[in-house]
C-alpha cells in the first residue's frame, strides 16, 4: 500500500469540483465491496455476501445523510477559514506593495483626500446651516416657523417672516391651529458707555420662547411666564459663549449686572452652548420684549399694526399637520386683517419648517451653498478618476505579478477583491486625512465667507465622520474598480509568455476614457467658476451711482446723549465739524437713510394728476440730507442745483429728485420748477408743495440686483427725522481713519453708547457675500479640478512616452526631427484635452442654465466664459504634455535599439 503522504503529494486533487456526497458514497461503496469480497472468500454465495455486508453496515441511508451533514459543515467552515486567511494574506501583500511605492500612495491619498475633504467640508457647512434644526431646538415635527406670503400683480409673490405685535397677539389668542406661538426680534444694542462701549446682538423674545422650543437652562433660570407686557425688573438671559467671555463661566454670570442700551439688566440665566434662538445667527443675550422692545421699536410696540418687526415660531396642536395649520392660520391672519383693516386680509400663512433648507424664503447664499456642495462632488469625481487612472497604471505595471497569482490558482474573483480592497484602503487613509482638512477648512470658511453664522464647536462631528466614511468607501470602490476591470479584460496569462515585455501592449481605452472624464468635469467646474467670478466682478464693479470706496459711515446715537431736539441738531453739527477737521477727511455730511440698510418711502401726490401709481422697484424713496451730501457720496448733478445754505426751515420747501423719478413722474417733460406733495403731508390742509430744484443721477439703494428706484431728497433743515448717519469722504486710506472718526465723535460726546463706524465698503460687502462665496469656492474647486486633471494627463502621457520609446527611437533613427517628435506627443495631449472639452461643454451648457437665478447680470451661456474655460483647459493640457514630450526628444535611437 502506498503511504498516505506520498499519495497526497502525488495525487492531491482539488477540493473544489467534487461533492461531499460523492466522497461519502465512494467510501461506503468501497467498504461494502471489500466486505463482500471477504465474505465470499469465506465461502458465502454472492447474494448472501451482499446481504450480510449490508446488514453489517446498518441503515445505509441514515448514515449517508449524517455523514454528508458532517462533511458539508466541515467544508463550509474550511471555506470560510480559507477566505479569511486569503483576505488577510491579500491585505498584507497590498500593504507590502504600498510600502514599496510610498510616492504613489502619497499622491493617491492626497488626491483623494482633497476630493473627499472638499466634499466633507461642504457637507458639514450645508448640514450645519441648512439641514438641521437650530441647536437645542426640539424638532419633533410639531414645531413650525411662520411665514407669510402676499401676491400682487405689480410685485409678484413675496415671502416674508415679519409681523406686527397685534397680528402676533391675534394669532396666539386664536388658539387654533397652534398650541402656542413665540416671537423674536433680532436687535443690535450698545453695551457700556463711551470708549468701552460695544455692540451686542440681543434677541428680544416673548417669555414662552424657551419652553416652546424645548431648551433648558445651562445655569440659572429663564424668564418667568408672566413677563409679557411688563417686567418687575429688567432681566437678561445670556448665551454660554457670552457668559464665559464676560464673567468667566456660566455659573458666575448668574446674578451679575449688564448695562445694555438705557437699561441695567440682571442676568438670571444662561442658555446651553450653541443655542441661538430659532435661527443660526450669532446672539449674545436675550431680553423679554417687555423689557427691550420699547427702546428698539418704540413705545407703541405692542399696539401699532403698522410696524412688522417680529418673527414667529409655533408649536402646532397635536394631530394638526403643517398643511392644515397653514389653512387654519391663514383664516386667522385674514380675520385679523379684516378687523384691523390692514392688507393682511389677503395674505397666506405658511407653517414652515425650522430647518432652513425647507423654508420657503431660502437665501441666495443658502442656495449657492447647496450648489457648491453638489459641485464639490465633481471635484471628488475628478479625484476618483485620477486615482483610478494611477491605480490602473500600477496594475498594468504589476501584470506579471498578477499573472503569477492567477497561475498559482488564486481565482480572479479573489484577485479582484484584493484590488478593490487596495482602493478602499487608500481611500480610508484619504478619508482620515480629509477629516483633518475638513476641520481646518471648516474653521477657515466660518471665519471668512460665512462669518455671520454662529455655530459652536468644530465642524467635525458624528454626522460628518459618517458622511466622510461613506464618501471614502464610495471613492475607494470607484477608484478600485478600474484595476479590477483590467484583470478581467487584459489576457494576463499572456504576459507570462516570453517575448512580451513588461508594460508592453496597447494603450488602455479605459485610461483614455478616465482622462477625458477628468477633462470634462474640469470644464464644468471652470465654467461654473467663470460664471460666478463674472457675477462677482459685475456685482462689485457695478456703478452704484455713488463712490463706495474711501467712504466711512458713522452712526453715533445722538438721541442717547440728549433728548432735546435743538441740542441734538447742534450735536450733529458738532459731530460733522469735528470729523471734517480730521486730517485726511475731505467732507462729512448727514443723511437719514443708508443705502442697502435703511429705506424710507413716501407716497407722492402730483397736483395735476393725483397719486403716483405704484412703481416697479417700490418707492419713491425719500431721504433728507445736508447740502454737501451729494458731493460727499460722489453723486452727479444732472440738472438744476443741489441744496444750499439758503434752504432753511422757513424758506420755500425744495427737493432734489433722481432721474428715475423724473422719468416715472414727468416723462418727456422738464421737472425742474414743478412741485408735488407727499401723502402724509397731504392730510393737512396747508401742506406745502415741494418744489423740484435739481435732478441727480440714479443710485442703487435697495439691493444690488434691482434697478435704481425713484428717489428724492429733502434738505435736513426742512425735514428732520431723528434717524441719522454721518457719511465721511476721505482722500486716502479708509481703514486708519475709522478709529480716528470714532475718537472724534467721542470727544464731542463722551457719553455716547457704542458708536458704529465702518468703511462703507462693509455695507456693500454684505450685498456681495453670496457671489463672493460662489466665486471663491467655485474658483477653488475649479483650480483643484484643473490641477488634479493636469496631473492625470501628465501621468498618462508620460506613461505613453515610456512605452513608445522604441517607436520614437526608430523614428529618430529614420531622421525625425525634434519638432516632429514633440508634436507627435503634443497631438495626443491635445486630443485628450479636446475630447474632454467637448464632453464638458455638453454637460456645462444645459447644467449652467439652472444656475441663472443665482448669477448677477451674467448669462449662463456667456461665450467669453466658455472660451476662457476652453482656453485654460487646452493650455493646461499642453503644459502637462510638454514635460513628457521634452523627455521624448532626448530618446537616443542607439540606446533604445540596444535595449532589445
Amino acid at each position, binding site marked *: 500500500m502506498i503511504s498516505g503522504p506520498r499519495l497526497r503529494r502525488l495525487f492531491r486533487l482539488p477540493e473544489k469540483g467534487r461533492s461531499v456526497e460523492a466522497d461519502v458514497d465512494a467510501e461506503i461503496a468501497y*467498504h461494502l465491496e471489500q466486505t463482500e469480497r471477504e465474505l465470499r472468500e469465506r465461502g458465502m454465495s454472492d447474494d448472501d455476501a451482499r446481504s450480510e455486508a449490508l446488514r*453489517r453496515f446498518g441503515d445505509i441511508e441514515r448514515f449517508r445523510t449524517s455523514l454528508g451533514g458532517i462533511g458539508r459543515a466541515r467544508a463550509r467552515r474550511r471555506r470560510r477559514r480559507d477566505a479569511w486567511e486569503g483576505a488577510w494574506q491579500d491585505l498584507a501583500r497590498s500593504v507590502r506593495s504600498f510600502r514599496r511605492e510610498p510616492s504613489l500612495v502619497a499622491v493617491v491619498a492626497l488626491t483623494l483626500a482633497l476630493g473627499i475633504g472638499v466634499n466633507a467640508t461642504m457637507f458639514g457647512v450645508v448640514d450645519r446651516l441648512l439641514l438641521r434644526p437650530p441647536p437645542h431646538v426640539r424638532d419633533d415635527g410639531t414645531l413650525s416657523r411662520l411665514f407669510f406670503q402676499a401676491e400682487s400683480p405689480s410685485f409678484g409673490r413675496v415671502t416674508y417672516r415679519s409681523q406686527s405685535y397685534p397680528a402676533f397677539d391675534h394669532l396666539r389668542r386664536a388658539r387654533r391651529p397652534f398650541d402656542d406661538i413665540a416671537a423674536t426680534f433680532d436687535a443690535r444694542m450698545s453695551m457700556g458707555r463711551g470708549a468701552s462701549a460695544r455692540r451686542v446682538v440681543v434677541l428680544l423674545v416673548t417669555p414662552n420662547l424657551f419652553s416652546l422650543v424645548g431648551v433648558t437652562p445651562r445655569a440659572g433660570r429663564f424668564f418667568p411666564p408672566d413677563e409679557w407686557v411688563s417686567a418687575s425688573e429688567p432681566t437678561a438671559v445670556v448665551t454660554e459663549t457670552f457668559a464665559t467671555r464676560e464673567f468667566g463661566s456660566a455659573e458666575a454670570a448668574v446674578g451679575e449686572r449688564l448695562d445694555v442700551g438705557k437699561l441695567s439688566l440682571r442676568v438670571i440665566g444662561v442658555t446651553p452652548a450653541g443655542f441661538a434662538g430659532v435661527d443660526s445667527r450669532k446672539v449674545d443675550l436675550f431680553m423679554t420684549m417687555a423689557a427691550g422692545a420699547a427702546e428698539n421699536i418704540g413705545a407703541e410696540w405692542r399696539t401699532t399694526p403698522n410696524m412688522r418687526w417680529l418673527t414667529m415660531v409655533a408649536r402646532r396642536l397635536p394631530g394638526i399637520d403643517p398643511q392644515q395649520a397653514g389653512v387654519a392660520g391663514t383664516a386667522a391672519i385674514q380675520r385679523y386683517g379684516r378687523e384691523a383693516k390692514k392688507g393682511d386680509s389677503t395674505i397666506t400663512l405658511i407653517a414652515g419648517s425650522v430647518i432652513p433648507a425647507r423654508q420657503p424664503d431660502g437665501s441666495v447664499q443658502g442656495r449657492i451653498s447647496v450648489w457648491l456642495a453638489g459641485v464639490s462632488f465633481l471635484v471628488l469625481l475628478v479625484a476618483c478618476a485620477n486615482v483610478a487612472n494611477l491605480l490602473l497604471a500600477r496594475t498594468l505595471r504589476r501584470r506579471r505579478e498578477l499573472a503569477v497569482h492567477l497561475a498559482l490558482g488564486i481565482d480572479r474573483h479573489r484577485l479582484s477583491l484584493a484590488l478593490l480592497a487596495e482602493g478602499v484602503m487608500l481611500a480610508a487613509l484619504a478619508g482620515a486625512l480629509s477629516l483633518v482638512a475638513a476641520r481646518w477648512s471648516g474653521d477657515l470658511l466660518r471665519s471668512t465667507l460665512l462669518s455671520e453664522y454662529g455655530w459652536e464647536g468644530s465642524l467635525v462631528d458624528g454626522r460628518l465622520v459618517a458622511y466622510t466614511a461613506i464618501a471614502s468607501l464610495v471613492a475607494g470602490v470607484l477608484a478600485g474598480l478600474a484595476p479590477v476591470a483590467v484583470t478581467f479584460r487584459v489576457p494576463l496569462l499572456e504576459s507570462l509568455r516570453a517575448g512580451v515585455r513588461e508594460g508592453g501592449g496597447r494603450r488602455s481605452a479605459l485610461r483614455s476614457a478616465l482622462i477625458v472624464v477628468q477633462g470634462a468635469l474640469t470644464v464644468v467646474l471652470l465654467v461654473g467658476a467663470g460664471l460666478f467670478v463674472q457675477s462677482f466682478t459685475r456685482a462689485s464693479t457695478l456703478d452704484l451711482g455713488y463712490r463706495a470706496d474711501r467712504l466711512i459711515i458713522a452712526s453715533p446715537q445722538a438721541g442717547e446723549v440728549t433728548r432735546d431736539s435743538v441740542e441734538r441738531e447742534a450735536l450733529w453739527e458738532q459731530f460733522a465739524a469735528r470729523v471734517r477737521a480730521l486730517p485726511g477727511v475731505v467732507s462729512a455730511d448727514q443723511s437719514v437713510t443708508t443705502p442697502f440698510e435703511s429705506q424710507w418711502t413716501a407716497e407722492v401726490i402730483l397736483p395735476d394728476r393725483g397719486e403716483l401709481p405704484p412703481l416697479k422697484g417700490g418707492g419713491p424713496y425719500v431721504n433728507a440730507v445736508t447740502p454737501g451730501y451729494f458731493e460727499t457720496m460722489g453723486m452727479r448733478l444732472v440738472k438744476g442745483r443741489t441744496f444750499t445754505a439758503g434752504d432753511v426751515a422757513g424758506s420755500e420747501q425744495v427737493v432734489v429728485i433722481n432721474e428715475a423719478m423724473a422719468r416715472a413722474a414727468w416723462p418727456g417733460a422738464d421737472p425742474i420748477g414743478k412741485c408735488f406733495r407727499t401723502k402724509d403731508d397731504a392730510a393737512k390742509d396747508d401742506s406745502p408743495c415741494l418744489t423740484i430744484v435739481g435732478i441727480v443721477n440714479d443710485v442703487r439703494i435697495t439691493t444690488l440686483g434691482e434697478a435704481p428706484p425713484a428717489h428724492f431728497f429733502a434738505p435736513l433743515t426742512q425735514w428732520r427725522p431723528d434717524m441719522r448717519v454721518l457719511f465721511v469722504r476721505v482722500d486716502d486710506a479708509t481703514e486708519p481713519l475709522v478709529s480716528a472718526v470714532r475718537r472724534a465723535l467721542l470727544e464731542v460726546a463722551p457719553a455716547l453708547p457704542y458708536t458704529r463706524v465702518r468703511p462703507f465698503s462693509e455695507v456693500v460687502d454684505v450685498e456681495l457675500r453670496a457671489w463672493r462665496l460662489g466665486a471663491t469656492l467655485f474658483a477653488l474647486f475649479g483650480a483643484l479640478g484643473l490641477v488634479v486633471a493636469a496631473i492625470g494627463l501628465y501621468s498618462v502621457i508620460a506613461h505613453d512616452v515610456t512605452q513608445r520609446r522604441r517607436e520614437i527611437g526608430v523614428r529618430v533613427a529614420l531622421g525625425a526631427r525634434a519638432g516632429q517628435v514633440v508634436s507627435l506627443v503634443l497631438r495626443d495631449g491635445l486630443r485628450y484635452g479636446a475630447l474632454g472639452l467637448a464632453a464638458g461643454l455638453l454637460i456645462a451648457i444645459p447644467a449652467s442654465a439652472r444656475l441663472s437665478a443665482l448669477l448677477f447680470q451674467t448669462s449662463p451661456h456667456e461665450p467669453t466664459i466658455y472660451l476662457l474655460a476652453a482656453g485654460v483647459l487646452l493650455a493646461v493640457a499642453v503644459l502637462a504634455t510638454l514635460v513628457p514630450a521634452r523627455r521624448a526628444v532626448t530618446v537616443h535611437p542607439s540606446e533604445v535599439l540596444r535595449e532589445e
Partner: protein
Amino acid sequence: MPREPLDLLQGTLDVLVLKTLTWGARHGYGIARWIRDTTGNELLIEDGALYTSLHRMEDRGWLSAEWGLTEDNRRVKLYQLTTSGRQELRARTAQWTRYARAVASVLQAT
C-alpha cells in the same frame, strides 16, 4: 456456534478507532476489519457507526484524512492520527482503564 456479540458501550468505539490508527494510516474497511479480527467478533459494531465516528473525529481534528489510491488503483479515503488525536487516545485509555478497574473491583468483591 459463536457467542452473542456484546453491545458496544457508549463512546468506546472512538477509542477503539483511535487505537487502531496508532499503527499508521488505514481506510475505513481496514479499521473495521482490524477491530473485528482483534476482538474475535466479540463486539457488535455497525459499520455505519464506525464511519460516523471516523468523520466526527476528523471534524474534531483528531484524525486527518486524505484520498489516496490502492494498489489496484481504487480511490480510498485514508485516515491518520493527528497530534491531538494521540493526546485524546492517551486520555481516553487512562479513563477507560480506571473505569474498567473500578467496575471489576466491585464485581469481584467477595
